[in-house]
């Protein structure tokens, strides 16, 4: 089972002090401290990166490809995320960033924001054709899709079946590069410059399609210092490479995807805790009549990704002023739709949090959890290494912990033992 989940958020054990910052903050309760070190329970992790943000010792790391991955290919195409442009100061022309990427060593660029405009159009078309299945939930944030897959089975039918901008960008970039160079597919490296580790995971173990069209994923924060020296020179060049407008760039922050759908009623929530609340309410049908729901695990949307450099809200403001004089969109669907326009496979419910192997077993184990909870102090102090007393009770029932892991239970246990010894 473990093999199925490739996570991109991992632990640097030598730096971990065994404190419980990450344990407490993890939205899916996927972290425990065992033997003085944090452990990520792989199948619970949705790669949202909250633990990376909160760890005071920088012991949580996002895994991605090194910049040297560029050397593995005869020809490389950079796919900059829409939020990438928002990392730079006083940038009023996205062409400068694109030129600088080429100066840095990429043979070509294909903007994810360009593909995003195709996705916006595909989504508008899909939603108007499938009105009866509304509300549609965005599938652009891989952490959110993974969260729905493991926790909200009843919402799976509402997932928008249009592929994400970066996947479509990758397949288009590869096709264009093959036509341009005549090289074989494996000689061309389509490299995504990513704001977050969840995108790395979605490339390594995709949900809803067989294989990702992306060859490698590198981090914005790694590219940033390397690209800066080329920015001035890029300012002096005049070639116009930029191929996206307001709709495409807007995808970089929360609400951008939804506004590009030109719908009457939509909701856009960001920040993983807010996302969970919206999903809970949506599942209980607490609000209806919405056509679209955009959810981003990071506060602010992709500008808030853990691999970004700039403050998310400053980045959002920059994105806004940058796109002011752009055309609405520069990309329209032609007769030939991108070959991976839609999510082909059903995303199936993966009940990773189930206590038992079947319902009867689960019922018995939940009863044990309830009983154990009665004996625990209910302080949720985290000293046992689990985020809450209830989580410890679940671990005990799963056979992963024991009651004496609770310092209060242990204290009583020792107290009684001393008392009994005294009476001997």
């Amino acid at each position, binding site marked *: 089972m473990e093999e199925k989940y490739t996570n991109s958020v991992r632990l640097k054990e030598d730096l971990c002090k065994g404190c419980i910052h990450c344990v407490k903050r993890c939205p899916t309760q996927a972290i425990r401290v065992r033997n003085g070190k944090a452990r990520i329970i792989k199948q619970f992790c949705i790669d949202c990166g909250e633990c990376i943000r909160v760890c005071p010792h920088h012991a949580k790391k996002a895994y991605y490809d090194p910049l040297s991955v560029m050397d593995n290919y005869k020809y490389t195409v950079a796919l900059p995320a829409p939020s990438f442009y928002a990392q730079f100061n006083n940038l009023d022309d996205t062409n400068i960033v694109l030129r600088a990427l080429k100066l840095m060593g990429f043979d070509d660029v294909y903007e994810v924001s360009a593909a995003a405009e195709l996705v916006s159009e595909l989504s508008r078309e899909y939603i108007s054709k499938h009105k009866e299945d509304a509300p549609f939930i965005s599938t652009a944030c891989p952490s959110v899709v993974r969260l729905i897959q493991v*926790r909200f*089975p*009843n919402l799976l039918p509402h997932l928008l079946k249009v592929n994400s901008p970066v996947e479509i960008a990758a397949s288009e970039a590869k096709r264009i590069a093959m036509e341009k160079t005549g090289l074989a597919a494996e000689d061309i490296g389509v490299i995504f410059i990513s704001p977050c580790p969840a995108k790395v995971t979605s490339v390594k173990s995709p949900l809803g399609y067989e294989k990702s069209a992306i060859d490698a994923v590198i981090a914005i924060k790694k590219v940033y210092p390397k690209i800066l020296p080329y920015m001035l020179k890029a300012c002096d060049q005049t070639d116009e490479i930029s191929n996206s407008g307001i709709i495409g760039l807007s995808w970089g922050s929360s609400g951008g995807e939804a506004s590009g759908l030109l719908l009457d009623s939509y909701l856009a929530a960001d920040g993983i805790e807010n996302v969970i609340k919206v999903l*809970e309410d949506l*599942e*209980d*049908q*607490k609000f209806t009549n919405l056509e679209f729901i955009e959810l981003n695990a990071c506060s602010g949307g992709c500008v808030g990704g853990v691999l970004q450099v700039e403050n998310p809200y400053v980045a959002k403001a920059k994105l806004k002023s940058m796109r002011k004089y752009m055309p609405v969109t520069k990309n329209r669907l032609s007769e030939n739709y991108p070959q991976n326009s839609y999510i082909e496979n059903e995303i199936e*419910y993966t*009940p990773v*949090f*189930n*206590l*038992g192997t*079947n*319902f*009867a*077993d*689960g*019922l*018995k*184990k*939940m*009863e044990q959890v*309830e009983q154990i909870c009665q004996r625990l102090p209910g302080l949720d102090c985290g000293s046992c290494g689990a985020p809450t007393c209830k989580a410890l009770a*679940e671990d005990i029932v799963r056979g992963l912990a024991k009651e004496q892991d609770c310092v209060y239970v242990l204290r009583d246990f020792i107290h009684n033992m001393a008392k009994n010894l005294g009476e001997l």
Partner: protein
Amino acid sequence: MSNLVLKYTVDNEDFTRAGEASSDVKKKLKMMGVPPEAVRKVAIAMYEGEINMVIHADGGEITVEITPTQIVMVLKDKGPGITDIEKAMQAGYSTASENIRALGFGAGMGLPNMKKYSDEMDIDTVIGVGTTVTMKVNI
């Protein structure tokens, strides 16, 4: 085979807390491996019931019994009772005050939805004494 019994107290007039009980039950049912469709029915039916208890009855007690074949929810309040059950079961009929409606509740869908999402529903109400709603969802 043992049954699991969960008990909840629903606070009066606190809309921000209404739904806590149903959301806890939902979470537990999922962890137990109850089929998603049954979880959905329980969550919606119970949430509607919980809201009703807050709006009309100053809160009350909820007992949820989970057996291998069904989930039985008993919602008991000491509210005013339901004068005309037939009318209350009609979609769109509501006795909720203007204040409650201003909050977006009182659309007259509470009882109809509770009936719709439970496989069996029984209402036992006495004017001036209170109401007990029993809802069953089969697994």
